[in-house]
């Protein structure tokens, strides 16, 4: 499992630790199933995604966000099992001791 710490190494007390799991199409670009991330206290899902986009660059960022910076409709994110659509979207806070964030890119249902 890869580890990711942002900016200067931070004091444990000032950080939240997040375990990110990638599922669906994103696994193909991330090349890793899980990632441990340390973020400043008070960070949100949006902050996490920004940090991930910074780390992985393209195509990850383009798979995640539209040109206008919105999350694509096929990206699904759970924080500790709760879909962020039910908890405030990307502004959902990462406040737990050991937050589990799943970032999933679902394949489209195609038909035909």
């Amino acid at each position, binding site marked *: 499992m890869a580890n990711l710490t942002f900016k200067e190494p931070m004091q444990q007390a000032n950080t939240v630790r997040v375990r990110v799991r990638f599922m669906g199409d994103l696994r193909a670009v991330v090349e890793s*199933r899980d990632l441990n991330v340390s973020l400043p206290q008070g960070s949100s899902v949006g902050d996490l995604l920004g940090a991930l986009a910074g780390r992985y660059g393209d195509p990850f960022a383009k798979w995640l966000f539209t040109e206008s910076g919105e999350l694509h409709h096929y990206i699904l994110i759970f924080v500790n099992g709760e879909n962020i659509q039910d908890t405030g979207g990307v502004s959902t806070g990462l406040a737990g001791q050991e937050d589990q964030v799943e970032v*999933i890119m*679902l394949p*489209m249902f195609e038909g035909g």
Partner: protein
Amino acid sequence: MATEWIQTSCGMCYVGCGVRVQMEDGIALGIEGDPNHPQNRGNMCAKGKAGLMNLYNPYRVKAPLKRTNPEKGLHVDPGWQEISWAEALDTVGSKLQAIRDNPKQLYIQGWEITGDSHLWLHAFASAFGTPHYSSNGSPTCGKVIHPVEFFAAGGFHQQPDLHYCNYCILVGTQFAIAARASFNHILRDMADARARGMKLVVVDPIGGFAGSKADQWVPIRPGTDTAFALSMLHVLLNELGIYDAEFLKHKSNAPYLVGPKGLYARDPASGKPMVFDAADQKTKVYDDPTLKDPAIIGASEAGRPSFELLKEHVAKYSPEKTEEITTIPAATLRQIAKEFGAAASIGATTVIDGVELPYRPACVDWAKGPQGHKHGFHQCWPLKLLNIVMGAVSVPGGILSTGAAGKKPFQWFPEGGTDGLLEKGGNILPLPHPKAFPGRTPTKPVRNDLAEIFPLAPHFHTLLPLTAEDHERYGLDYGLEVMLHTPTNSLLGSFGDLKVVERFYRSIPFIAGFAVEINETNLFDDIILPFPSYLERFDFNAGTSSRQLGPCGQDDWFWQVRQPVVELAPGLRHPQEVIMELARRVGILDDFYRLINHTFRLKEPYALQPGRRYGATEVIDRTARCWFGEEHDLKWFQEHGVIRYEKDVEEAYIGPFLQARLPIYLEHFLQRGAELKEVIGQMGLDWDFSDYTPLSEWLPCPSYDAVKKGEYEFIAVHYKLPYVYGSFGNDNPLINELCERNPYAYGVLVNADVAKAKGFADGEEVWLESPVRKVKVKLKLTQCIHPEVVGIAGHFGHWSPGMPIARGKGVNFNSLLPTDLEHIDKISTALDHCVEVRLYK
């Protein structure tokens, strides 16, 4: 002997009609349509009536098999050996485990739409971490209709409103006569509509089942639908001046001002598209609250309204010029346009359940035919535009959108997004849908199906055989290592040229497939897992009718759960349980549960719990109770079959309630095209960008050019038979008998006058040769086909020993199709389905 009737759902095609099966001593003796089922109202088709033959097919696979011959090929005997489930699952599990760290090497062909498998495999693919999941069976069908429908109407597919329509034009579809979703429901609606005087015009190279029922059959040269539609638009907008100006001003992007580079003129502060308000002669953003009368014709300093550009653009397609392309006489096109425009009754309203609604009793419907072309997207899009400019979308009498909105058991409704345009189509399941707006930003491909360089496409599997030939050419550093597939015969039905397809299947080192009988795809399997008949299965998704393709208008919304009528044969397992067991073996079961919970909206206390094991019926029972309340458990569905809710006007006719504009101008095609050029430049590929245009242009298919140059004489096209579905259909003895008794089914249609001039007789065997294949065919001469066209029906041409009834009969149309980038639509990934051929003795 006691006779018992068991209610369940037909699974002989994707529709899912309600049926009653007559049982005696555990033996199924007969099938009838359920008269109380809103899907089919007691009707059944020949395929459904023949279903018992599939259940009792002596050639069914009833135990796992492994291949003993490592050599693979179209006609190579795999040397099957029966094995235990333990060995089969161990083998498949270990192959999956071996690619666990690089899961994108897994390809799942998940198209099995009669039951739960496709959604369960969808969840499996996501939990495993592969992007290579395909729930699309055909190389053409669905490639344009779904993405267009989601951004131009709000649902999954379209349906003419046969309850109120007075003038219906079918282009390349046998809607409600020989094909389409909710088949047995819409058949009756079509008959009623024709009886009350609705005029039916069928524009199709073949005057088949639909043509024979039409008031007017208009033969068209294949691959020229764009020109037909643009010319119709020209006559309506420029010659007759018929369009729904009020609708276009307030409910479409017709007033958005377009600058000299084809992009919207945008407000510098907000970035929003601008319009010109004729009421106070001011330029404003499209959603300015003071906006009264957005201009759709004329020009302002900021730019010209997109509608003005459309009018000017279509003027290039006069009926006279178009006749040269389509062969439709200019007078005929004008007559149809005039009648269509008059029937649309612009400005009329009607009142339904006390609600006043626009009334536009005229529409154009299209489906498989126009999609299957090199420029498939633009063959279809202007056909949709005909409905949009008439304001005939999602209103009584017009074109309706399936599955777009509902209020029970959940609320779902399409929503606007980017630039105020419809962006988020409605979907009862919280799954992403394949819309073409605003599209994705192209990047260099990681995927073997090159999804990244088809930023507006919904489907990508047609690219897999091409990249398998040369990964490096596309910058890919890996190939597919493992394939799992449903019983669908994708080798024969999902691609084209068999030589290319054979190389593709041979390139995948390990393939495991479900099988009902051993079809041509299974001949490449390393492990076969037996798949139950629909009469032995439990499925929460009993076909697609409830979820995405139910009858439109005010017919009841419903849900049915499929139950078995006979015990699962020894040696068979429920597919859901096989998928869960594989997920457990590769350590993704909890992730899989999370995705199933999401897919089926399972909340506490119904959600599947990590660490627990479930049977198929337990999951279905939980889902039924979660959706419909504790009292509506699986047992309730087994007793009652179907649950139904009335739809209100807002669910049935969503148009007036939609808080979003529909597109007539595709600005984002320019943006995605420009981004793609950059990526393709970096990749060093030759690419055709001609379809990245905001207004459609007719461009010829290779077959059109080949015939024009005199290299070939005919264009071959495919058409559907109402009694054959999928590439397994005619292995059923009753369906085969229908095909044999009907000289059109296994024969190849050719125009009688043309055939006689060439010295061909009815029933004669001749060679049919395309650029990639030569086959012996039996001719059926008919007046009901365009003189330049050869018509091939159904999904035939089987050779698998596991399909002894179907073997050696009819022609496999797809195998005639050149399969290369040149024949793939650069917008939708559809494989060109019109192919140049010659006939000779």
